[in-house]
Every structure is written in structure tokens, then in C-alpha cells.
């Protein structure tokens, strides 16, 4: 059988099984069914932990309620592999957000938090209220992706959701504390960025020379602390 072909039986047709699709011959994407929540994310973490020790799996790359398996060689039997992933999905208990707690002191607003006024305007809240809500949140690192050390954080209060920009800021500085849609994060590199900068933190998110290069890992929890407010 083959996945991604119209004639193929739909793997994952059983209710609430993950959607499984191939990205070429060396990668398979497993997407959790249902809403984006920490229960489904915890099941993805558990699946990634289990699958990353399978022979032929070079890496299990965690995304937001999904995981991509990267293979050393094209798998011999895609159907069998997909079936064992579905079986594991239903059997494995999810992993809790059991990582370390990372505290990040933030200089809110000011020169590097240049989008704070726009966020305040969009949400209809005073800037100080946006800062209070953001700094009181309890966040979970769902995945580290997109750039080295960049954590996708879950847990942003819906009152301060703010759409991504249609035109990215050309050079946002590493350490910028940002809001993009329903997520928040800390920019790991200085680069163009479509999220909204509300502050800045003097924290090295990534250092290839460290034993663990990425400060944030999936399952870690993050708390932002007000270091200073510049309005």
C-alpha cells in the first residue's frame, strides 16, 4: 500500500487516530487529531520518545501536536509502520509537562518591545495590563523549531492574542519576547520576524558549544518575570 496516493486506504481512518502522511521517502508526519491542547501535545511527546529509539529513525522532530519521523533509509513497509504508530498512539500514556522551569526576566516595552503599543491597541487593554497578563502566564514549551532554540510556547491568555504581521520586522533582535497569534516566544536569532515584539530578555536561547545547546526543550515550563517596564 502507499500513503499519499488517492487509491490508498486511509491510514488513521479510525476515529481519533493520528493522521499519517509521507514527506518524500525519508520522512513521515504524524498529526494528532483534535484541538491544540496539552493533552494531545503530551501524547505526541510520548510518541516521539518511543519512536526516536526505533531502528532506522534518525530523529523524531516534535511540532505543535505533531511529530515528524526522519528515517536513515526509506522504510520497507510503510503500511506496517503506520499501523504500529497508530497502535502506539492508542496505547501510550501521554507525557506530562515534566521538564525544568525556566524563569525569564523581561524588559517590557521600550526600544526593543516596539510592538507593545500596537498589541495594547489591538486588545483594547492598557499596556500595563498586557504586561501583567503576559508575565502572570504559565507557559509550556510544546516544541523547539523554526530556528535554533526557538520554543513554541502554549498558554498565552486569549485576551492578548495578536495576529502575526503581514510584513515582518526586518531585523528583530535575539531575545525579543514576542506574541504571534495564540502563541508567545523568545526570538533565538536576530532575523526578520513576523511576530510582535513586546519586550526583550537578556538570555542566550541557543549556544552550539553548550552540552545542551537549546535552553528550552519540549516539556519545559516558562515563566516571564517583569524586570523593568519602559513605557
Amino acid at each position, binding site marked *: 500500500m*502507499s*500513503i*499519499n*496516493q*488517492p487509491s490508498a486506504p486511509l491510514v488513521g481512518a479510525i476515529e481519533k487516530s493520528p*493522521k499519517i*502522511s*509521507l*514527506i*518524500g*521517502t*525519508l*520522512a513521515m*508526519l504524524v*498529526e494528532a487529531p483534535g484541538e*491544540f491542547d496539552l493533552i494531545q501535545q503530551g501524547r505526541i511527546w510520548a510518541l516521539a520518545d518511543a519512536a526516536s529509539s526505533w531502528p532506522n529513525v*534518525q*530523529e*523524531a*522532530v*516534535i*511540532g*505543535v*501536536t*505533531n*511529530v*515528524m519521523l*526522519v528515517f536513515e533509509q*526509506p522504510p520497507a513497509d*510503510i503500511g506496517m509502520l503506520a499501523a504500529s504508530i497508530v497502535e502506539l498512539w492508542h496505547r501510550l500514556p501521554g507525557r506530562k509537562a515534566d521538564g525544568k522551569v525556566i524563569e525569564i526576566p523581561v524588559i517590557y516595552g521600550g526600544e526593543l518591545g516596539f510592538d507593545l503599543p500596537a498589541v495594547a491597541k489591538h486588545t483594547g487593554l492598557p499596556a500595563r495590563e498586557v504586561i501583567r497578563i503576559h508575565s502572570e502566564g504559565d507557559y509550556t514549551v510544546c*516544541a*523547539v*523549531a*523554526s*530556528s*535554533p*532554540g*526557538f520554543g*513554541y510556547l502554549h498558554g498565552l491568555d486569549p485576551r492578548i492574542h495578536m495576529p502575526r504581521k503581514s510584513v515582518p520586522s526586518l531585523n528583530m533582535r535575539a531575545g525579543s519576547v514576542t506574541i504571534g497569534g495564540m502563541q508567545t516566544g523568545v526570538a*533565538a*536569532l536576530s*532575523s526578520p520576524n513576523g511576530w510582535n515584539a513586546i519586550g526583550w530578555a537578556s538570555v542566550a536561547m*541557543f549556544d*552550539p*558549544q553548550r552540552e545542551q*545547546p*537549546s535552553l528550552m*526543550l*519540549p516539556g519545559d515550563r516558562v515563566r516571564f518575570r517583569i524586570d523593568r517596564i519602559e513605557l
Partner: protein
Amino acid sequence: MIEILASPAFNTIQDLGRHGARGIGVSTSGAMDPVALAAGNALLGNEDGAAGIEIQTFPFRLRFQEDTTFALTGADHVSTLAGLSMRPWWCKRARAGDILAIGTPRRGARVYATFGGGLDVPRVLGSRSTHLRAGFGGLEGRSLQTGDVIPVGKPPQEAARRFDFGAAPPDVAIPGAGPRDDGVLRIRVMRAGEYDLFSEAMQARFWSTAWKVSARSDRGGYRLTGDKLTLDAPIEMRSHGVVAGVVQVPPAGEPIIQMSDANTAGGYPKMAAVIQADLWRLGQAAPGSFIAFRDVSYQDAVAAMAPVNDYLASLRAVADLYRQL
């Protein structure tokens, strides 16, 4: 040691890529034409994954500071060593002081210079490839520039006697791998996760269009122009892992093919993925050139790697033999 005398922007040290660090957001990098890099290394008796220079802007010149064996592979180009013209897909032994000059390719986009023993820059997270965006790997994480001096490792075979021979490039040696007369590069792809969300008309358009590789294409990705692919109902996908070769369709409708320096994650609908056996051919597609997609099954995609692997294995075997003659 080699000394860079002239290098326009974006020429970098690359090996076969950094694997296993996607989970912390680190893209693989690595040669855009991994077959050319591996072939250059095979000519010299290096391991396939020894680091070389990926040259994609020209003219490029370097000086050998000591006697060094080297090979030039990849795009079809004109080069000279110590003023004497040299054939592409060839290896030679340079004398200390010799200058190697490489001109703009006649066909293809990227020339690979490999050196007996490989370029000896530190491995970062398991690879010597330059990660330009994050600024590590290669030489200080940046493009090469005039005045750079790069150490070359110890050559693998001191007893080798012969260093003046070449090989047929893979687009000549592998049947069907070369370009056709119409100038459109045929690239084989497998359908990917969101293919079925596109209407039949959009699917047909995807297969029938000769897509132009736009000028805004680089090691990060190829942006294609020629037509627009739209969804009846736009979808927003959650960020998920992607690999080189994935063909994504952003809301504006013009496809993007992610390449070696692509982000580890994407969120656009995926139409298709370039098969591994054709990624190296795509890596030689220059901005302004045209490509068209052809649909293959998983089994055909897997089978298509055999001629590529056979080509590299036989090149290595013959080169090993020849060096000892």
C-alpha cells in the same frame, strides 16, 4: 592550507549536512548537490562526507599554500590551475603557490571544490557545514571572503601515485538524469499531506505548469513562479517538521520548495515532496531556469536511488583502483 583570493557572496563550506539536531530547531544545511560533493570526495579517496567548498557565485579564486590534491565537481564550468585550463569533474595535485580560478558555470548552479583530507574546520553539532542564519559551522558560521585561510586535513592515502583523472558527471552517467532539449528540468515528486485538499483543476495545474525558479531563490528555498495554486477553503496548519524537497503552497499561491538551509518547521499546505534521487538535480537548477513535476509512487521513489548509489559506488571503486596504478 588554502587561501581564498576572490569569493563573491554566499560561497560556504559544506559537508553532507547536520543530522539529528532538527529537534532543537537546527536545520540540516549541507551541500545542495550532495552527489557532486560525495563524488569529489570519492575521486580523492576521502569519506563521502568530508567538507568542501560550495561555490555558487563567481569568479572564485584560491591559492594553495602547500602541495594539495583536489577535485572539482558539480556544475559544468571553466577553470584554470596555475593558468592551465582544467576539466570539470576532474582531480589534480596542485603545487604550493598554484592559483585555482573557477568561472561562471555554462550549465548548472553550483561547483564543489573538495580537497584530499577534507577541509579541517571544527565540527559543530556533528557537522562542518556552515549554518549561515545561526552563524556557526564552516568558517565562523559565515560566507568565505578574500584573505580567509582554511586548513586542509591529512590526505587519506599517502601512497597514492596518480592524481590526474576524472569521471563522467551523474547527469551523463545515469540514464534520464540529464536535461531535455526543451530546457525544462523534470523533477520527480511524491504527493504530500495536503495534495488532496487542492481541486482537480489545481492539481492538474501543478503537474502541467513549467515553473520558473525565481530570482528570490537560494539555499533556503526555491520560489516558483508561473501560475497560482489556490485552495477553495484556505487552511492554517500547525507548525510541523519539514525536510528539504518539500513543496509548500503559501496563501499567495506560488509554490516554494524548501532546500538545505530551510527552517526545520513549516506551516503551509504541502503539495508534494521532491524525491531524494532528484534533490541533487534540483540543487543544480539556477534562478531563471524552468522545472516541471512528475508524479511517482513511493516504490518508484525508493527504487530511483539505486542508480545514484550505484554511480557513486562505482566511481569510488574505479578511483581507488586508478590512484594505485
